[in-house]
């Protein structure tokens, strides 16, 4: 199981591979039938878990609250029940002072459920920051081909830390939307290399948006999560003031370019072609994080 690429696995398979064997206890499992009431009105089939599997597990013996999105189900998008399960899980993490880990695979709000998914994501953000204030670790794992976009992209960035693989993407507007808006000349959504250079794990890692960049394997993802369990990442005046300076500097340094290669070069990548082919782990080893944030 550890050799199958993480991005090819389904959510339940990822959970089984990442958690300590047999440790996952699902909360509101399929027989509970906690499902969407909106989708049937639109003639769309429901799913027993509404595309979000939640539960408690252990990782290397440490308890975690774990959520995993099902990308195949309406694009992993977030509706009323999906987000309510998520908020309940994050609040459980805050209550019990147990780390919250989420395997993200989502385009954002579920359009078919309109504003209810949007409000649900907003509630999830409040809950995540409540965890951070309480010193509870909140870890987003972004390694699927769908990535973390829209409201889920913002949510992922709200978590205290992020594990990414070279397959994962973190953004707000997706490639097709960008192409529609800017035109194909300005951004070709069929250019996969460009898309991944723009939003993918390697660029995010170089800029400091991903705390850990790992190979596309469940062993590596599991190790990446474990390395972050002890880092609650609270927000303080000191930390956000430093972030303000860092993000302003990033805007100044790269705000006029459209070419992600400029970021790579500025970060010390000399052979861009080779770096593009490297696995997440290889890339991170070649370009280790500096001790101060970049």
């Amino acid at each position: 199981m550890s050799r199958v690429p993480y991005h090819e696995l389904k959510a339940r398979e990822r959970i089984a591979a990442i958690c300590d064997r047999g440790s996952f206890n699902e909360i509101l499992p399929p027989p509970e039938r906690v499902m969407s009431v909106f989708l049937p009105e639109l003639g769309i089939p429901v799913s027993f878990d509404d595309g979000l599997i939640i539960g408690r597990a252990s990782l290397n013996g440490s308890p975690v609250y774990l959520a995993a999105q099902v990308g195949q189900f309406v694009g992993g998008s977030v509706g009323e029940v999906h987000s309510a399960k998520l908020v309940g899980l994050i609040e459980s993490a805050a209550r019990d002072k147990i780390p919250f880990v989420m395997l993200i695979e989502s385009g954002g709000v579920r359009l078919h459920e309109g504003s209810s998914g949007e409000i649900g994501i907003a509630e999830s953000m409040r809950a995540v920051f409540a965890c951070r204030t309480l010193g509870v670790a909140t870890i987003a794992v972004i390694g699927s081909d769908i990535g973390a976009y829209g409201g889920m992209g913002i949510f992922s960035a709200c978590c205290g830390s992020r594990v990414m693989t070279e397959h994962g993407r973190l953004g707000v507007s997706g490639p097709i939307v960008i192409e529609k808006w800017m035109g194909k000349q300005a951004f070709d959504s069929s250019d996969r290399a460009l898309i991944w250079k723009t939003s993918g794990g390697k660029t995010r890692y170089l800029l400091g948006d991903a705390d850990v960049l790992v190979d596309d394997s469940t062993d590596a993802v599991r190790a990446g999560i474990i390395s972050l369990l002890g880092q609650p990442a609270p927000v303080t005046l000191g930390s956000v003031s430093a972030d303000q300076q860092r993000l302003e500097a990033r805007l100044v340094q790269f705000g006029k370019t459209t070419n992600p290669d400029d970021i790579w070069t500025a970060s010390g990548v000399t052979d861009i072609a080779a770096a593009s082919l490297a696995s997440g782990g290889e890339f991170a080893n070649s370009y280790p994080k500096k001790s101060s944030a970049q």
Partner: protein
Amino acid sequence: MEKFQKSFPSAPLAWPSGKTWSLAGVVGSANLEVLMEPGAAADSAEFDVQTSFPGYQDSWLAALSDFSTHYALGGTKVTIHDQGAAPVVITMRLRQALDQLIHP
């Protein structure tokens, strides 16, 4: 959306103790999810199908009847959410769900 229920005779399945459900598949394009639970009459498999591709009931019933004949599924309630899976995929998911029950 099309919904229907149908039971078929099936050799009894001894549900492993401690197991109360198994799930296979995912609701997505050309796919389906299958939930198996105990609670049907011992010599009967009960199917509850919801599909977003109406008009294939005959094909469904044939596949479900076939499966009930070839595998011991008696005593099991099977609930299906389908988004246009082909018969071979339906059968595969039923087998996967059953497999998870028998060989966890």
